[in-house]
């Protein structure tokens, strides 16, 4: 090794050590539990009067319908909290970027959020394939990766592997189990066809469903997102004699499967998983065809689905009333949708987490707070979170509802369960109501 290159190595080594030290210095752990009285810039993305939270959503592209409006809901709720004094006097600065549901873009925008915008935490990053691309990065950087907006098990089943990542919504496997048990009890003679997205969304759902009705399943058909010709799949379900079809699919494929079924004169009882069943969105997609003389295709009347959050069609629900108030005050255009409610509900949980992280939150105190206190938080979710040191899974239950007109009626009250062999139990907790201020008041978690 020549002299000059040896010097270069020395310099590089020194720079590396220095930057590592600087990085460590950036995330020191002071004041996490509260106790001090003044607001400090306690960690990356936190100043005396702001907290910066980032996220990624498909604002354009195939997954954009519906999903692109979730961050608007979160924005509305954060604005509401900010107007009422913020979290411990800090305003929430909500930065979200478009990844067009393309994992390559997700990596890029999350890099930007973490390295350039220097967010304190990521909240509600949307999508399984997209978020999978950034989980390792976020965990290696020690960035709290809260409330991933997808029902994959990946976010919560193994906190040792991904200590910084937390799920939020009911996972697809638990949903599948609840659906499977419901069918086994209420439709024991149904010949069940499965219409599945060919990725872990469909696989997890199928696994759950088959735990209960493996013998009832007459055919399982998979579609690849992007291939919109589902004719052969629906024809196969029909040919197999299915009279009950369970769909683990996204909303656009609900519309496509309905259209194709209409074409084939196929009229089973439909049961769409929560993700694909938003009646407003699917209805809007199908409604337009009334000009094409198929007016009766425009509704999902009688379709069964699941719920883990209150929905806009229940204006009497106290949470819906709160969110309606927040939405109206936000000054955003258009009526409030279930996607907005989803965003607002996530934002509500985020505020709970920030409060529980103490007056001067650090990334570590934030994640500790979710692990220790999260399972006790009351919120809009119909069942409690499963957060603990051993599980970062989110909401652990669902009700079964049937679409009727523009509303839904409950067929089975909330049942709770978990991954694998965990039993399905009726949820005995009380329905929560929001605090009168509309803002949670969590104590700093010890």
């Amino acid at each position, binding site marked *: 090794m020549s002299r000059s290159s040896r010097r270069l190595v020395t310099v590089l080594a020194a720079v590396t050590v220095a930057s590592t030290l600087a990085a460590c210095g950036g995330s020191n752990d002071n004041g996490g539990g509260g106790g001090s009285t003044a607001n400090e810039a306690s960690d990356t993305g936190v100043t005396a009067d702001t907290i910066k939270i980032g996220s990624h959503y498909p604002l354009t592209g195939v997954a954009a319908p519906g999903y692109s409006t979730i961050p608007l809901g979160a924005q509305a709720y954060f604005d509401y909290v900010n107007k009422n004094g913020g979290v411990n006097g800090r305003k929430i600065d909500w930065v979200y970027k478009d990844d067009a549901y393309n994992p390559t873009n997700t990596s890029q925008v999350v890099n930007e959020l973490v390295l350039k915008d220097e967010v304190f935490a990521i909240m509600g990053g949307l999508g399984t394939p997209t978020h999978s691309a950034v989980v390792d990065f976020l965990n290696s950087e020690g960035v709290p990766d809260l409330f991933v907006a997808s029902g994959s098990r990946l976010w919560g089943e193994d906190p040792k592997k991904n200590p910084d990542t937390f799920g939020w919504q009911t996972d697809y496997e638990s949903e599948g189990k609840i659906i499977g048990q419901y069918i086994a009890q209420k439709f024991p003679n149904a010949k069940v066809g499965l219409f599945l997205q060919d990725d872990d969304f469909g696989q997890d759902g199928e696994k759950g469903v088959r735990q209960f009705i493996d013998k009832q399943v007459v055919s399982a058909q998979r579609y690849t997102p992007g291939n919109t010709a589902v004719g*052969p799949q629906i024809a196969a379900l029909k040919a197999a004699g299915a009279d009950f079809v369970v769909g683990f699919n996204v909303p656009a494929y609900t519309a496509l499967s309905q259209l194709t079924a209409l*074409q084939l004169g196929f009229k089973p009882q439909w049961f769409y998983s929560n993700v694909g069943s938003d009646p407003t969105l699917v209805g809007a997609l199908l409604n337009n065809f009334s000009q094409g003389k198929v007016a009766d295709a425009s509704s999902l009347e009688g379709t069964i689905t699941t719920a883990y959050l209150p929905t806009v069609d229940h204006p009497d629900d106290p949470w819906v009333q709160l969110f309606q108030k927040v939405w109206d005050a936000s000054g955003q255009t258009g009526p409030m949708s279930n996607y907005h409610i989803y965003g607002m509900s996530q934002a509500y949980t985020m505020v709970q987490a920030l409060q529980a992280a103490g007056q001067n939150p650090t990334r570590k105190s934030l994640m500790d707070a979710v692990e220790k206190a999260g399972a006790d938080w009351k919120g809009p979710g119909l069942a409690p979170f499963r957060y603990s040191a051993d599980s970062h899974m989110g909401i652990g239950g669902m009700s079964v509802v049937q679409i009727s007109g523009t509303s839904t009626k409950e067929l089975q009250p909330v049942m709770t369960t978990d991954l694998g062999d965990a039993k399905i139990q009726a949820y005995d907790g009380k329905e929560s109501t929001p605090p009168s201020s509309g803002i949670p008041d969590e104590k700093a978690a010890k």
Partner: protein
Amino acid sequence: MQQFVNVTLSGLIQGSIFAAFALALVLIWRSTRIVNFAQGSMAAATSFIALALIHSGQSYWLALVVALAAGFVLGAVVERVIVRPVEGGPELNAVIVTLGLFVAIQALIAIIAGSEFQSFPAPFGLRGFTFGSTTIALTPNSVFVLIAVLITMVLLVALFRFTRVGLAMRASAFGQEVARLLGVRVGRMLTLGWALAAVVGSLSGLLIAGGGLVYPAYMDSLIVFGFVAAILGGLDSPIGAIVGGLLLGLALSYVSGYVPRGSGLVNLAALVILMVVLLVRPGGLFASSTARRA
């Protein structure tokens, strides 16, 4: 049996739309010797014009006519303003420009019309015909699609074979200088070729949109399959485009319907089919003559 009939019918209908798109590619190839990658985006643009009209309360048929007219104008403008300046250079330049145009038009649609899924009305019913108690995957609308594609093909064959304009277009494409010496206004013929191709492309865009969901990139898969169909048929022959399109549609439908997890294998299957056909018949199934290659 029922499954076979339905999968076959879905394949035929899909295939007829591939065929319509392949026709547009053949048309532009025959009249300008350029492969136009922007064809799909141009068709999507005109479909969105039609959708805007339908949303404003106009009838489907008026929207169809306006969209086709818009396609004609768009094709002519693209040729004159964007393709013509690069036409003198290496052949590849024009092709790459159309690729750029493909992305640009799509972005423009997203800016103007938004990138959400929207449903596109169909002119005829979307309910399959019933025979006794069985319903088959053939709807009044898909009959309309099939007929529209066949008529288009007949018109194109007639244009190239029996009219002076068609002859002049072909001449301009093959030997600009010779054609010019013979008194053909080559520039005009090229513009006309692009305009007509854009009309046929727009028609295929509208046909696939009817009774389905549209978004700025909805023509993307069609571009790929349309090219495969056109190459299968020989890129030079309207009948080849139709046969190529129908064969491809059928093959892909069988793959999707009968191979386990076939829905994901469709794109792979298209490549395999293309490879096999080109290995056996390098010029495509209906290559008119190999001697013509310049």
